[in-house]
C-alpha cells in the first residue's frame, strides 16, 4: 500500500477548507491552504513514483466497493502505470506553477477564496481522472473537471457573457459525455466489467476488426466523449468562449490539463482502438481537420486569448492526429510539451493583460517588450517551442507526430506540415503585435510581480528543455513504437515550414506593418470568413440550437407541458368542480332527503338480492 488516495485527497481537503472557511480567512491563509495542498500532492506523487521505481507493472490499489449490482462491481480503485505517472507529474507540476501564478493574478479580484477552492477541486477531479482504475471512476473525474470548468468559466458570474460561456461549455460537453456514457454501457455489455485491467485483457484476446464492429462503435463513442472534452470538431466551439474565465483558468484547465483528458482517455483505451482501426482512422481525421481549421481561424483573431484558444484547439487536433496514427506515445508526448508551452503562453498573455489592466485586444498593444521584459522573454520561449523550432520542446513532440502521420498516410503529413507553418505564423503574429512596434493603447503598462514572473520563468525552462524528457521511450512498454525509419528529410521540411511561418509573420507585422491590413482588404470576403470563425457558431445556432430551443418551447413547453399536462390537471380540477356543483344539490342539509337517499340505496341492494336469487 502506497496510499495513492492521498494524491487526490490533498487538493480535496484544500477545497473543503477553503470552500468552508475561506471567506473569513485572510488571503495568506487561503494561499497557504491552496498552494500547500498542491505541493503536498506533488510531493506524494514524487514519493510514490520513487517507491514504484521503473513501473514494469501497473500498481493498483483497491479501497472499497463503490457499488455492486448483479454482475457489475464498481470499486473505488486507483492505479498508477507509466501513462498515469506522466499525467500525474504534468498535472501536479504545471498545476502548482499556475496556482502560484494565480496568487498574483487574482490578487485584485473578488471571490479570492472561491477561486482557489474551485482550483483545488479541479486538481482533485483531474487527479482522480488520471488515476482511476475503471471507466466509471474515470467518468467521475471526467464530469468533475467539467463541473469545475463550468464554475471557473463563469467565475465572473455578474458578466452575462461569462455565464453563457459557462453554460455553452457545459452543454457542449454534455453531448460528448452522452457518447462516453453509451460507450461505457457498451463496454459493460461486451466485457461484463468496467475495470481497465479486465476489459483491456479481454480486448487483447479479440481479433482486429477489419469492418465496423462492437469495438469500432465503442471507439467512436469514446471519441465523441473525447471530442467534447478536448474540443475537437464538431464540439470545439465551447473552448474559445471559455476564455471568459480568469486567465489562470484558461492556462490550467483549458490549455494544460482538462482539455487533454480526451487525449489521455484515448491513449488509455489504446488496447480497444488498436483492434478497431476504423475508429482510429476517424480519430486521425478528426484531429487533422481540427488542427487545420483551428489554425486557420487563429490567423485572424484579434483577442490575444482567443488566438491562444484556437491554438489550443489546433494543438489538441495534433495530439489526436498522433493518436489516430497509432503513435499514442507521440500524442502523449505532445500533450506534455503542450502543457508546458501553452500554459506559459496563457500565463504570459495573462501577465500582459494584467499589465494593461484587462486589455485583451492585440490591436491596442504593441511595444510591450520594453515595459514587460520578463513576460516578453518567457512568451518568446513558448512561441519558439510551439512553432517547432529545434531544439525546443514542441519540435520534438510535433516531429514525432508528423513522422507517425507520414507513416500512416503521407497526405496527412503534408497537411500537418502546413498546419505547423500556420501555427508558427499566428503565434508570432500575436507576439509581434503585442511586443514589437509602438504602444497603441491608453494604459500604462507595468511588469507583473515576482509571484507571477517566477512561474513564467519555470515554465519557460520546461518549454525549452521539455523535449528532452523522452516520453515515448518511457511509454514504450505500453505503446510499442511505430515502425518506420526516421527520415531526416521530413524533419527538415517541417522545420522549414515553421521558419517560413515565422518569417512571414515578421515581414507582415514588424518589417512592413501596413502589409497585413492591405492583404486583409485585398482578400475581402475570405478574411471576413476567417475572422468570423467560418460562422460555425452562427451555423450551429441556426441549424441546431434554435430549432431545438424553439421546438422545445413550441412542442414541449406550450404543447406538452402547458397544453397536455397542465391542461389535464386543470381539466381534472374543473371537472371535479363541475361535478361538485351538481352533486352539492344533493347535500340539501335536510335529514329527510338524506333518509330518502339511504332508502333508495337499500332498495337497490334488495333489488340486486332479488335478481341474484332469480338468476340462480
Amino acid at each position: 500500500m502506497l496510499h495513492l488516495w492521498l494524491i487526490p485527497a490533498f487538493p480535496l481537503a484544500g477545497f473543503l477548507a477553503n470552500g468552508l472557511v475561506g471567506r473569513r480567512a485572510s488571503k495568506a491563509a487561503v494561499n497557504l491552504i491552496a498552494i500547500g495542498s498542491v505541493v503536498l500532492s506533488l510531493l506524494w506523487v514524487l514519493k510514490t513514483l520513487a517507491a514504484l521505481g521503473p513501473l514494469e507493472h501497473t500498481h493498483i490499489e483497491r479501497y472499497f466497493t463503490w457499488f455492486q449490482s448483479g454482475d457489475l462491481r464498481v470499486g473505488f480503485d486507483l492505479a498508477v502505470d507509466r501513462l498515469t505517472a506522466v499525467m500525474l507529474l504534468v498535472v501536479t507540476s504545471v498545476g502548482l506553477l499556475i496556482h502560484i501564478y494565480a496568487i498574483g493574478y487574482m490578487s485584485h479580484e473578488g471571490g479570492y477564496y472561491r477561486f482557489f477552492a474551485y482550483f483545488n477541486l479541479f486538481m482533485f477531479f483531474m487527479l482522480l481522472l488520471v488515476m482511476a482504475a475503471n471507466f466509471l471512476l474515470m467518468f467521475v473525474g471526467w464530469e468533475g473537471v467539467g463541473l469545475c470548468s463550468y464554475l471557473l468559466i463563469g467565475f465572473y458570474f455578474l458578466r452575462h457573457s461569462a455565464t453563457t460561456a459557462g453554460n455553452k461549455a457545459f452543454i457542449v460537453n454534455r453531448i460528448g459525455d452522452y457518447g462516453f456514457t453509451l460507450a461505457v454501457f457498451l463496454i459493460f455489455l461486451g466485457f461484463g466489467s468496467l475495470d481497465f485491467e479486465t476489459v483491456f485483457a479481454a480486448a487483447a484476446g479479440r481479433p482486429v476488426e477489419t469492418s465496423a464492429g462492437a469495438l469500432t462503435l465503442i471507439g467512436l463513442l469514446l471519441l465523441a466523449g473525447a471530442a467534447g472534452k478536448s474540443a475537437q470538431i464538431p464540439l470545439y466551439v465551447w473552448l474559445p468562449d471559455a476564455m471568459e474565465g480568469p486567465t489562470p483558468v484558461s492556462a490550467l484547465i483549458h490549455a494544460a490539463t482538462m482539455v487533454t483528458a480526451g487525449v489521455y482517455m484515448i491513449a488509455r483505451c489504446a488496447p480497444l482502438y488498436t483492434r478497431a482501426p476504423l475508429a482510429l482512422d476517424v480519430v486521425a481525421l478528426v484531429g487533422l481537420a481540427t488542427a487545420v481549421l483551428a489554425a486557420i481561424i487563429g490567423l485572424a483573431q484579434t483577442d490575444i486569448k482567443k488566438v491562444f484558444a484556437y491554438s489550443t484547439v489546433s494543438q489538441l487536433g495534433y495530439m489526436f492526429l498522433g493518436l489516430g496514427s497509432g503513435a499514442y506515445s507521440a500524442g502523449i508526448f505532445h500533450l506534455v510539451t503542450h502543457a508546458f508551452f501553452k500554459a506559459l503562453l496563457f500565463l504570459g498573455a495573462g501577465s500582459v493583460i494584467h499589465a494593461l489592466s484587462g486589455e485583451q485586444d492585440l490591436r491596442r498593444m504593441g511595444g510591450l517588450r520594453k515595459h514587460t521584459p520578463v513576460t516578453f522573454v518567457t512568451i518568446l520561449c513558448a512561441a519558439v517551442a510551439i512553432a517547432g523550432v529545434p531544439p525546443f520542446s514542441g519540435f520534438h513532440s510535433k516531429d514525432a507526430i508528423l513522422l507517425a502521420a507520414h507513416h500512416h498516410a503521407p497526405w496527412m503529413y503534408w497537411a500537418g506540415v502546413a498546419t505547423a507553418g500556420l501555427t508558427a505564423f499566428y503565434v508570432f503574429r500575436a507576439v509581434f503585435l503585442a511586443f514589437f512596434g509602438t504602444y497603441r493603447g491608453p494604459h500604462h503598462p507595468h511588469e507583473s510581480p515576482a509571484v507571477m514572473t517566477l512561474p513564467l520563468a519555470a515554465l519557460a525552462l520546461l518549454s525549452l528543455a521539455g523535449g528532452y524528457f523522452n516520453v515515448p521511450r518511457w511509454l514504450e512498454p505500453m505503446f510499442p513504437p511505430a515502425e518506420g525509419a526516421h527520415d531526416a528529410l521530413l524533419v527538415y521540411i517541417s522545420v522549414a515550414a515553421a521558419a517560413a511561418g515565422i518569417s512571414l509573420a515578421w515581414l507582415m507585422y514588424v518589417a512592413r506593418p501596413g502589409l497585413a491590413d492591405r492583404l486583409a482588404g485585398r482578400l475581402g470576403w475570405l478574411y471576413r470568413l476567417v475572422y468570423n470563425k467560418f460562422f460555425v457558431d452562427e451555423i450551429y445556432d441556426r441549424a441546431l440550437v434554435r430549432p431545438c430551443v424553439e421546438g422545445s418551447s413550441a412542442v414541449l413547453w406550450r404543447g406538452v407541458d402547458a397544453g397536455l399536462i397542465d391542461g389535464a390537471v386543470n381539466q381534472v380540477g374543473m371537472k371535479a368542480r363541475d361535478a361538485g356543483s351538481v352533486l352539492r344539490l344533493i347535500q340539501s342539509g335536510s335529514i329527510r332527503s338524506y333518509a330518502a337517499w339511504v332508502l333508495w340505496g337499500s332498495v337497490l341492494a334488495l333489488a340486486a338480492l332479488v335478481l341474484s336469487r332469480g338468476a340462480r
Partner: protein
Amino acid sequence: MDLVLFLTFAIVAVGCAVNLVLQRHPISAAISLIGVMASLAVLYLLLGAEFIAAAQVIVYAGAIMVLFVFVIMLLNAEAERKTGRSLVARYIGIPSLVLFLSLLGVLIHALYPSAERASFGGFTGGTPQNVGRLLFTRYLLPFEATSALILIAIVGAVWLARKEAGE
C-alpha cells in the same frame, strides 16, 4: 288460538304504528309506540322468548319510553308545524318505500314458501336461564363491551345535557 292471538296483536301493532306515523303531536306518537311495543311483547311470548318479552316491557316500554315522554314534557313539545318540504323525500322516498316493502315481501315469499308454523310452546329455549347462560359464557365479551358503551353513553348524555356556564 295462536292464529287469533297473532292476528289480534299484529293488527294492534300495525294500527299503533300507523297512528305513530300519522299523529302530529309527539305525545300521541309516544303512546302509539308504547302500544306497538306491548303488542310485540305478546308476539315474543308466542315465539317462546320469555326473557325478551319481559325485557321488552321493562326496558323498552318502561325505561326508554318514559325517557321519551319525560323529554317531551321537559321541552314542552307542541304539535309539529308544517315547515319546509323535502321534494326528495316525497318523490324519491315514498316510491322507494313502496318498492322496498314489495321487494321485502317478494324475498320473504321466495325464501319461506312453506315455512313451519309457530305455535305456543313450540320453542321453550328462551327462558331467562338459557339466555343468561349464553350471555355469561359465549357472549361475555360483547356483554362487557355493552357495559362500557352504556357508561360512555351516560357520560356523554350528562355532558351534552348540562347547562352551559353562561346560561
